């Protein structure tokens, strides 16, 4: 049994949520059972992803071919240290979100299908992290897209419908571009398996089709992850969803886009040739600056945080813009830090709403007297986001900026430092308005339930742990960055020398 689970471990992070989605859909209308199914599923998925991570760390990459078809003909799953860690952190966040949801979910939202949709989203996210086939990645993106649309419109308010339409149209364009890129790539190489592509692409003659395909990947994933000229859908939709959904979106969705971009531009295309790097640098700088400026004028907590997702994505993009091993390691570190901190800030926004009944900063206030603990809990991720030592954000920013200076991209480091300053401005705005000032009119404060604080405290502890003992995560990020860029290891997963000889005959 143990051997069986070890042998098939890579399937479970997708299979468990899929089964849970099916059960939750089949049990629609029976809220108690749905809740048990979802809670059980997120715990089991988290356990499975931890096991996957430990196996990957001790024994190296894991792979699985589906349906008995050998690669490159069948669909494959593969996990290196980067993707295994992404799956783990995604499912940790899912677990936190479900705990948070225990009291915050309204019956109407469950009626609208929260449980099956949430599990479906986790299927898509985990599938996208684990797949080793570029067309399969497209399928997971579509699974994510359709479930996120359902999740955004959970309450069917006017603002949600409005946000969902913007989200839908722009993301549909992104997936169409993604599909076209896959078509061109297939036309040029004749294969869709990522390991096979890593083997074939360096030997393929450079052509216009390949360049266009790479650019289409860049734009498609750019829309998904919210780069500078293409981020508009994000701040006009994320803040409308209910806070549990917003937190999961903020933590995971853009990161899936970033993950796919890193995979495509380390494993398939060579970031060092062509004009990719200057383009990435331009995107990264624009994303950082416009995200943080966009946040400055807003008054809705969720909207400020949504704009900050964008500016933080810019920092992660620096990793590809500089593209030294140091920068990639910094980007991996930054992704982990950002998922934790950003989701936590959204959870805290939910707690602020719980306490004051509004998300609008102009209307709330006085929380420092009412719930000093919440104030402390806000300070940790907020200061971490701004990069104040000794929290996790400081090390993440330090690694990125250090890598930029070493990688002859000093101007990017300057932009990053400047944006960090403006981030403090936004965070202190939330601090002043929600916690410090007296409310403009008396507010009837409500207590914050313990299920809301538990995920917040958990994520705060992780932030503090990373902050005070960054060594382990830094070392892990370096390993993930090396693994990510190691094409030979990916090729060796499915193809040994005899295979290659057979193909050549």
């Amino acid at each position, binding site marked *: 049994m143990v051997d069986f689970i070890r042998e098939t471990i890579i399937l479970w992070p997708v299979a468990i949520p899929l089964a849970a989605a099916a059960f939750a859909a089949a049990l629609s209308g029976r809220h108690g059972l749905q809740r048990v199914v979802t809670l059980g599923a997120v715990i089991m998925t988290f356990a499975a992803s931890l096991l996957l991570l430990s196996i990957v760390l001790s024994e190296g990459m894991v792979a699985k071919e589906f349906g008995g078809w050998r690669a490159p003909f069948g669909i494959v799953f593969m996990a290196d240290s980067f993707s295994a860690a992404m799956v783990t952190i995604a499912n940790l966040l899912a677990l936190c979100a479900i705990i948070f949801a225990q009291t915050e979910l309204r019956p109407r939202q469950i009626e609208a299908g929260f449980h099956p949709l949430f599990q479906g989203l986790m299927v898509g996210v985990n599938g996208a992290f684990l797949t080793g086939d570029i067309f399969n990645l497209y399928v997971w993106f579509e699974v994510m897209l359709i479930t996120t*649309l359902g999740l955004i419109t959970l309450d069917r308010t006017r*603002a949600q*419908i409005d946000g969902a339409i913007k989200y839908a*149209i722009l993301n549909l364009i992104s997936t169409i571009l993604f599909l076209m890129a896959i078509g061109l790539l297939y036309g040029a190489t004749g294969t869709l398996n990522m390991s096979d592509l890593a083997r074939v692409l360096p030997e393929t003659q450079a052509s216009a089709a390949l360049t266009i395909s790479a650019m289409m990947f860049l734009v498609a994933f750019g829309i998904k992850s919210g780069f500078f000229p293409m981020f508009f859908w994000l701040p006009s939709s994320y*803040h409308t969803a209910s806070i549990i959904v917003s937190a999961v979106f903020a933590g995971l969705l853009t990161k899936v886009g970033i993950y796919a971009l890193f995979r495509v531009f380390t494993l398939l295309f060579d970031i060092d040739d062509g004009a990719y790097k200057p383009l990435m640098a331009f995107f990264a700088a624009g994303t950082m600056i416009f995200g943080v400026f966009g946040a400055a004028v807003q008054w809705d907590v969720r909207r400020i945080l949504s704009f900050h997702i964008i500016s933080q994505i810019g920092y992660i993009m620096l990793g590809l813009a500089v593209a030294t091993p140091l920068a990639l390691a910094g980007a991996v570190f930054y992704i982990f830090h950002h998922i934790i901190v950003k989701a936590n800030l959204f959870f805290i926004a939910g707690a602020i709403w719980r306490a004051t009944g509004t*998300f*609008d900063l102009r209307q709330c206030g006085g929380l420092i007297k009412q719930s000093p603990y919440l104030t402390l809990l806000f300070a940790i991720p907020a200061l971490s986001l701004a990069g104040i030592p000794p929290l996790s954000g400081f090390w993440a920013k330090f690694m990125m900026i250090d890598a930029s200076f070493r990688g002859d991209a000093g101007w990017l480091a300057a932009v990053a430092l400047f944006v960090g300053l403006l981030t403090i401005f936004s965070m202190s705005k939330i601090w002043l308005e929600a916690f410090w000032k007296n409310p403009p009119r008396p507010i009837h404060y409500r207590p914050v339930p313990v299920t809301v604080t538990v995920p917040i405290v958990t994520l705060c502890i992780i932030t503090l742990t990373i902050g005070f003992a960054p060594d382990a995560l830094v070392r892990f990020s370096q390993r993930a960055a090396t693994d990510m860029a190691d094409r030979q290891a990916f090729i060796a997963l499915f193809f040994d020398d005899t295979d290659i000889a057979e193909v050549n005959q």
Partner: protein
Amino acid sequence: MSLIYAFSVSALMGVGIYLMLSRHLMRMLFGVVILSTAANLLIFVSGGLQAVAPPIIQGDMNILGETAANPLPQALILTAIVIGFALVAFAAALVLKAYGTIGSVFTDDQNDAERLGSPFYEEGPRNG
């Protein structure tokens, strides 16, 4: 023959993008549909065009005949069509819902999400 297909792909993309620039939600949706058709055709063309037999294994054979077409692009397109069908159906439901709740299909009238916490509107509707 590829050239004809190349022109059809570009024509479809042009029509799709033109429709997407509209402010009318239904037109935007039609634009998405046409654009995804263009993407499917693109896969079809880049998979290699040949006038050959359909990729169906005959009853007395175990493998595809020599003259059969490459089935993979067709499988990809089939998958993309099915997924596109689901997404467009969902988006159409969304547009209908938007028409029902907001009472307009023009993007100019849809600024409820933008209102929340915006400094240009006094106090947005409460939501959450």
